[in-house]
């Protein structure tokens, strides 16, 4: 099976480890992510103004190209897959909106005329987590595990975008299980913690990092209190805030002993014994290698 894959901006810059580990994992699980051609920005923050169609042109353009790509891609289902939760959210919401309002879609398509491509409203948007849950299945993930993550106690962090709003959510907003189930199939321990959807502070990192710091402090403290030694995330912005600001908090003397932040695909790559270079751990702010070495999950090159 192959999946048309929409990367988005972060996956090519700050979150290379997320993209490359995800692609490696997807190949190993026979659900390969194949990058769609000529993609553009997803539109980032979803506008809530109903008539601001300008802000919906970018996502619709992505969807129209994805629609073409899935038709050309052999063995592909009729869906485009994302890794970043923000891209997933924006594309899913806009997709639902234009399906509900054909008049809006017509107006947006008019703007895309020079592209020679219009969107018919015929593609589904899926997050890679949904592919793993619905198409691959947890048992098949477990079958590929050669290096079970024994000793890892993982708090799964969903953030806001994966669970809200209704049009974009990938799991139950109060009791999600998809990340926890993946953690279990990798042989790691699941930490039951209540801060799984607490906001990380999001874009406040640009101008009000004090807000982000207070959110990150709450999240990390609770994770440690429940015994976690690592967090997994599915969003480059969450990852940045949780990762970098822990060091910031340490510098300020507020928190100590930072715990590493992983993309869920990085841990999958380790558990499945895939080459370490896909993880790009050099991009992590808190070095995860000491923990992984201590638990005997990787061998540190001398």
């Amino acid at each position, binding site marked *: 099976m192959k999946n048309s894959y929409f990367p988005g901006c972060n996956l090519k810059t700050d979150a290379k480890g997320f993209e490359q580990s995800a692609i490696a994992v997807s190949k190993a699980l026979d659900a390969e992510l194949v990058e769609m051609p000529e993609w553009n920005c997803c539109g980032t923050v979803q506008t809530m103004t109903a008539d601001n169609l300008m802000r919906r042109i970018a996502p619709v353009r992505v969807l129209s190209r994805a629609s073409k790509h899935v038709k050309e891609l052999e063995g592909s289902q009729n869906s485009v897959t994302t890794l970043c939760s923000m891209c997933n959210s924006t594309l899913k919401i806009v997709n639902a909106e234009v399906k509900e309002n054909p008049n809006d879609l017509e107006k947006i398509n008019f703007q895309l005329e020079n592209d020679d491509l219009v969107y018919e409203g015929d593609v589904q948007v899926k997050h890679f987590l949904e592919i793993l849950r619905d198409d691959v299945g947890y048992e098949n993930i477990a079958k590929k595990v050669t290096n079970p993550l024994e000793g890892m106690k993982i708090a799964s962090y969903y953030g806001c975008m994966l669970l809200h709003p209704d049009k974009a959510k990938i799991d*139950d907003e109060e009791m999600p299980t998809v990340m926890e189930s993946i953690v279990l199939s990798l042989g790691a321990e699941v930490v039951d913690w*209540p801060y799984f959807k607490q906001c990380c502070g999001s874009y406040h990192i640009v101008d009000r990092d004090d807000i982000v710091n207070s959110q990150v402090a709450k999240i990390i403290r609770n994770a440690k*209190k429940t015994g976690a030694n690592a967090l997994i995330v599915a969003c480059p912005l969450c990852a940045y805030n949780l990762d970098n600001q822990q060091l910031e908090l340490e510098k300020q003397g507020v928190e100590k002993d930072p715990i590493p932040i992983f993309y869920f695909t990085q841990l999958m790559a380790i558990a499945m014994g895939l080459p370490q270079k896909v993880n790009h751990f050099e991009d992590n702010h808190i070095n995860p290698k000491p923990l992984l070495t201590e638990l005997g999950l990787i061998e540190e090159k001398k």
Partner: protein
Amino acid sequence: MRIGVYVCECGKNISATVDVERVVDYAKSLPNVAASRVYKYMCADPGQELIKKDIEELKLDKVIVAACSPRMHEPTFRAVIEDKGLNPYTLEIVNIREQVSWVHDDKKKGTKKAQSLVKSSVMRSALMEPLDRKKVGVTHKALVIGAGIAGIQAALDIAGSGYQVTLVEKSSSIGGKMAQLDKTFPTLDCSACILSPKMVDVGRNPNITLIANAEVEQVDGYVGNFKVKIKKKPRYVIEDKCTMCDDCVPVCPVIVHDEYNENLSPRKAIYIAFPQAIPASYIINPDDCLGIDPLICSKCKDVCGPEAIDFDMKPEIIDDEFGAIVVATGFETYAIENLGEYGAGNIPDVITGLEFERLISPGGPSTGDIRRPSDGKLVKKVVFIHCAGSRDPAKHLPYCSKICCMYSTKQALMFKHEVRDGTAVNFYIDIRTGGKDYEEFYQRAAEEAKVVYIRGKVSELIQDGNEILVKGVNTLTAETVELHADLVVLATGIIPSQGTKDIASVLRLSLGINGFIKEAHPKLKPVETSITGVFVAGCATGPKDIPETVSQAGRAAVRACNIIAQDEIEVEATIAHVDEILCRGCGICVETCPYSAITMIDTKRFGNTYKVASVNEALCKGCGSCAAACLNGAINQFGFEDKQILAMIQALGEE
């Protein structure tokens, strides 16, 4: 033929959108109309006298009243014409209120429509024939289903009027939810102290037959003559022999959750629901017991001195007949598992109001000390969340559960009485204290006992170490609120109980949009149901507090007595009848009839035997389904004959 037409103004209800004078003038021009008049309130005494006088002086033989719905005043006007010697079934009502004035604003069109309807009724009236009143005998005995406070009160009131009543209860003891409560608002009476005497009265009253641990399986028949099948499950303990010595309990090896204590404490497979239980006898739950088989375990039987334990008991089917039925099957609370935002039952110290009742009760699992379930620590800070699952049309129940403001206030007040240095916080949307002395009770909690009230909803509960972090909003100050609590109590909403749903389907009662049993009229017939002779009391029709439930049970009892006190009662005269010559015996009417009133019988004609339909006059409700379904036009309904209906249609078509 002399017809009188009487048009009602209904104050301004009708006259505002219908020109009644013009309707009267128009009626005068119609055939057979001997009198046509208007009056402000036709149902009032002067209006009725007007009709009576005309019948006498103008020798009318048919009367038409153009007024409100026949559901409102048909009985009133039937009595009026019967008083003057006319057959009550020759009365015709034209609904020009609900079907004209209330639904139109254009007076011209409204008047025109009223005129057309009057005309069609004049045409029908000429063809109406007198009908006989039908009477059936009555069983002088009532059935009460459900023995919470509503059922107990209804049974006591019926028995108190001198009639036999059978009280059926699903669980092992009567008492219902009220037996689980510690104290009651707004007087803080001990619930057991006011309920137990009534329970004992039920056990002692010679007019009451109590069948506990039983369910109503089937109900047939009709008002005055309900045939009921009751399934009594085996108790495995002979009630008369059990001395309640408790010797069997210590030896029983099975430990399960105690439902009476809301699963906060253990019980054995042989147990008594609570010390004041009626019937006063232990019971073995066969689902918990190792096997109801002396070969597997007979420890309880071995130690039982009075030899009260009988493993050979079998389920028993009791067939009986009743004149009237009172349904009092009560409520359940909205499951905490549905409330994901409050932990969905995964946070041990987030409990329901009913669990808190057990915690604070001296007879409860912690003998009245308020200890939290997770670690048994004495609670110092407690948060009550009102409307947990109520008034939330987006995710949960849309309606107000009515009693939660008061019971949360009561629980907070009791907590403050118990833990003087403790803190009790209530998060509420609105405080609703619509009951006698309720507002004063709330003021007392807030001002004297210093219970804290914060207007706003709690968005999330989070386990934070060994405390619970409560995240909410104060909508009066527009500030977010975060505070820690030892215990959080959810005032979960009220939903119809499984028993209510089950009995509604057995009896074929109509349900409202939220699943509660629907009253025949929300204001004037609050205990009557869609089925004559079946009444309802308590929370089966919607959330209610104890005083309201008790008064409703009293009315249900009176209404049941109204029926069982009579030797015979009148049933519908407008029933179906079969023209055997036209009937071809296809049986479509048998399938169509919702009351199983039609059967196929053999009839002899020209020396051959044919199958034809036959209507049971006592069972037929006159709904008309069969008359409409009959392909040969062989079934007609008294009072709604085809020729009458066709005359009406023709009159309307002529306009």
